[in-house]
């Protein structure tokens, strides 16, 4: 069921640009957009638009999708009648096609979600993802990271959990840990630097 269906209150708040409303829409559809960006898709006629696995590039694309969707004109143009998901996917589709045309960035074939135009037209779900084996190096990176985190003291492990697993802001995490924001930033920097060292020692980070 579409988020905006029978929810005129949310539509009004979204169009007005209220942060909580935008955040709700964002959180509801983020995974869909991310999946499309990561997996790529096919278009009618058999052309294939590969997905993006590079974290920085995928982040850039996802951010651009939502920036376009949440721009004032786009918010006000959305009528709340058409389902929102296809509208968002269409923006992502067009951005990714533009990138292929411009041959920007590192693109790889992963596991396409299906024919994007049919998905948008009928608001159909993505086809199931195949079990894609992570690259061996990436598996090793996760293993090294897990060992590294386990070696940290309790405070640092708590920091990793609050910031990276729960996604708390620096201010919120600092409060929970009984630290000042400055102390938290310093400790977080050390944790990140330590991981980089651990990865480099194994030849897993450049």
């Amino acid at each position: 069921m579409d988020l905006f269906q029978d929810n005129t209150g949310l539509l009004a708040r979204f169009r007005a640009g209220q942060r909580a409303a935008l955040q709700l829409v964002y959180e509801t559809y983020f995974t869909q957009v991310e999946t499309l960006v990561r997996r790529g898709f096919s278009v009618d006629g058999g052309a294939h638009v590969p997905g993006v696995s590079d974290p920085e590039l995928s982040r850039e694309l996802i951010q651009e999708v939502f920036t376009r969707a949440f721009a004032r004109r786009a918010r006000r143009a959305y009528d709340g009648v058409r389902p929102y998901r296809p509208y968002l996917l269409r923006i992502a589709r067009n951005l990714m096609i533009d990138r292929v045309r411009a041959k920007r960035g590192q693109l790889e074939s992963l596991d396409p979600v299906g024919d994007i135009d049919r998905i948008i037209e009928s608001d159909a779900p993505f086809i199931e993802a195949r079990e894609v084996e992570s690259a061996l190096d990436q598996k090793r990176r996760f293993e090294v990271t897990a060992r590294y985190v386990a070696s940290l003291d309790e405070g640092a492990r708590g920091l990793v959990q609050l910031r990276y697993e729960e996604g708390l802001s620096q201010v919120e995490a600092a409060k929970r840990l009984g630290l000042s924001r400055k102390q938290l930033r310093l400790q977080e920097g050390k944790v990140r630097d330590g991981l980089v060292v651990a990865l480099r020692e194994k030849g897993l980070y450049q």
Partner: protein
Amino acid sequence: MKRMTEDPQIGRLLSGTERASPLERAEIFDDVFRKTVGRERLVRRALIGSAAVLTVVLGALIMPPKEDRDRFTAKGGQVASFALRCADAQGQRCPCEPGSTLLFQLEPAGASHLGLFAKGPKSQLIWFFPKSPQETSLALAGHLQAGILDRAVQLGEEHPSGTYEVVGVFTREPASRAELMALAARGGPQVVTRSLRIP
């Protein structure tokens, strides 16, 4: 300061996922909001303003606490000055902290251009105007609405906590960064310094 997830790979490894970590998702949303609604509201407040919002912002800015007023009162002649104020997304005055908008209230006292920079807690230099070494100081004509500059700064995680020394250099002609730094080093009535504390 580099954003903590500037290398998303490290953040994703620490979160145990190849997808965007919760922290990354939050940062993406903050960026999206700042670039869309945040920018709309800033322009609206600075240039047009809804009556209620701008009145609140103006009320907060042009009626400073009594102890501040003497700094803006001309004493035997006009003296250029500026004040720093922070507002939240609703235009309400708030402490200067990440997420708030830093606004500049100016009394140019005949100056036509403004150069503005800050020295951060780690002695880092942050230029507001001019934005690049190729540009010159900001021409104020057309950029002031009731004394409020229509250029603001969104405080974020790239502004680490600490005390900032914000230096404004008022001139009657455009000046380059090098010229502004030289003027600031010499001091004088056209150089105004304000302290900004970010928790």
